[in-house]
């Protein structure tokens, strides 16, 4: 048996009759950045809650650094730091006080706490703001503080639940940089959940895509993309009135995987894509259809998700850009 940082075996969680997590198998090697990608309600947070011993699994086992989460719960807890879906820093406490609180809760001696506070604030780029109240920080700063807060006890594993929800592009890439640094310089294994394909693509060594509590695909981002097509994806934009006709024509030519979103028609190229494009444009203009734009892209994880589930991940994710909206709904039940 291989020695994994995180090993999840046949994990099941039922809420009454509802199966939120369905026979999940994930094995994460040491030093990896692993992404759990899935739309709202796919069971990401439920999985993480079980991983940290906050929820009892209905069945299945979880090992963190070889420790069974249920049986050796307190040892397992010491191995892992958690950044929850909600940004959790205490606005009424300063950055230093935030970190000290958690140092104490992890029962570290005061001199160790003080040393780590210095290191971690530097890592987060917040040393200038150490005595400022966290409530005055920008969203990105708060998020970075909550990430380093989870490192106060030097865990081997860092778990982040949708760490970049609600951040702008700049802050998002700053956070990615911080996570890469933590992974590289401290050798911390990272498991993160996300609804953002781009995030999984940019940050993760390996990904599992989950939908309705089930893993639908696993692998490196490029492996997964190759599952869709080894070739480029062609996208053709036409005026709205021509959309249906365009789709018909393309479907008659290439039976496979034609889909329409907005004003664009997508389909995977086969063989020589340039030649395909040329003949297609000719055919369309013969039928009186004016092509607005035409392009090609490498297959994305969205294409993967679409192929696997028949729905677009982006559509289901974009309804609630902020995961908290969903959470509130859940709480109302």
């Amino acid at each position, binding site marked *: 048996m291989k020695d994994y940082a995180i090993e999840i075996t046949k994990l099941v969680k039922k809420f009454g009759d509802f199966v939120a997590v369905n026979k999940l198998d994930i094995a994460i090697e040491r030093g990896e950045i692993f992404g759990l990608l899935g739309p709202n309600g796919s069971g990401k947070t439920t999985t993480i*809650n079980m991983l940290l011993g*906050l929820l009892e699994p209905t069945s299945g086992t979880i090992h963190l650094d070889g420790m069974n989460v249920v049986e050796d719960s307190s040892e397992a*807890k010491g191995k892992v730091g958690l950044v*929850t879906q*909600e940004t959790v820093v205490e606005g*009424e406490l300063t950055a230093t006080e935030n970190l000290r609180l958690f140092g104490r*809760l*992890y*029962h570290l001696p005061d001199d160790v706490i003080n040393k780590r506070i210095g290191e971690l604030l530097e890592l987060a780029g917040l040393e200038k703001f150490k005595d400022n109240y966290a409530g005055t920080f920008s969203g990105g700063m708060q998020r970075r503080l909550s990430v380093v807060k989870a490192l106060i006890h030097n865990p081997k594993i860092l778990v982040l639940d949708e760490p970049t929800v609600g951040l702008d592009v700049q802050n998002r890439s700053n956070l990615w940089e911080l996570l890469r640094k933590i992974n590289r310089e401290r050798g911390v294994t990272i498991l993160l959940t996300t609804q953002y394909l781009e995030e999984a693509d940019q940050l993760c060594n390996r990904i599992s895509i989950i939908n309705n509590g089930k893993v639908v695909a696993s692998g490196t981002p490029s492996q997964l993309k190759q599952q869709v097509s080894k070739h480029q994806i062609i996208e053709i934009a036409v005026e709205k009135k021509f959309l249906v006709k365009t789709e018909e024509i393309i479907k008659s030519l290439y039976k496979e995987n034609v889909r329409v979103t907005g004003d664009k028609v997508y389909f995977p190229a086969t063989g020589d894509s340039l030649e395909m494009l040329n003949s297609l444009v000719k055919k369309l203009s013969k039928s009186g259809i004016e092509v607005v734009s035409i392009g090609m892209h490498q297959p994305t994880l969205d294409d993967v998700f679409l192929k696997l589930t028949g729905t677009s991940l982006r559509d289901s994710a974009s309804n609630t850009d902020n995961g908290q909206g969903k959470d*509130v709904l859940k709480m109302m039940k």
Partner: protein
Amino acid sequence: MSILGDALTLYAREFLIFKKNINVSVARSVMFPLVFILLLGNIGNTSKNLPVAIVNYDNGINSIKFINLLEAANIVRVLSVTNQQSALNMLYMGQVTMVIVIPPHFGTNNQGSQTLTTYLDSSVPFSTTILVNQVEQTAKQFDAQVLSKGINSANMQQSPTTSFNVNYTYGTASDYKDFLIAGVMLSVVIFGALWSGGFTMLTDRQLGNLKTFLVTPIHRFSILLSKLGMGVTQSTMAGIFALVIGILDGGHMACGLYGVALIFMFIVLASIGFGALAIILATRTSKIETYSITGTMIMMPMWFLSGAFSPTNTFPPWLQFLSAIDPLTYAVDGVRYLFLKGFIPTSVLITDVVVLIIFSVISLIASVLLFKNTIE
């Protein structure tokens, strides 16, 4: 490390938050007692035309003078009643608030001093103060204007005086302010329980703080303890404010300084018991609205039934039963008892303490058990 040590760490966190919001926290602790004691406690001072039955066994010129003096300030509305029994019946029926019995030979008694007998309905405590004051002043006026002139005082050691004794229908001599202070102190406790520990438990759950605490190696119980500790702190603080405001405003305590320690023991016990209740609610509900509405719906009846504002023995029997099963009643009763009567007889106090301890222990255990089963 011990549960207590972790609880202290978390308490320190609560305290930092508390300190950061000190203005709001203090304002809340001060406003409640201030409003209730100053407004409600003094509201009776403006009362007019309080109905008083007079049983006049004298019917001489002096008793008429006395009655005229009594009516002069418009505070009292006099109803003449011919016999004492029917006057007392009126008192019990709530038709009058006071009965004054004027003895025969009023103002012509050569022995000098004379005594009026009065009966007061203490269930309307704020009028009792006014009425007692009014009778006292009238007696002084009467002494000055009538007695000292009408009687040959040459053969007397001192000038004659009119005094009166007061009989309370419900046994308690309650200045409403003194009566009220106990109620206000405990009101602060139950609403403090709802808005301090329980409330922050809910927001900690919602904001995810609780989750981050639960993944650390601390015991859950220490989280609970820190919340209760903060609730006790705030209740004690508010209790001190209530006490100080009440005393500055003219309230008095029968129990003296030692009694204050006991009063705060009641407050601590009650804030643990009700704090634990609020925490149970906070771990069961997910929305602030639900928590507020449910919490208020539970606490409000307890509040009214406890006799915080009016004596429970004036309630109809079915309400008296409800108030007897309301733990807050015993806290209010204990504190009020110390306030109005002091320590004796001790048996009443012991009952109050025992009931309160049982209640606090039960709700504490329940909160631990129920908290254990909640995730998030």
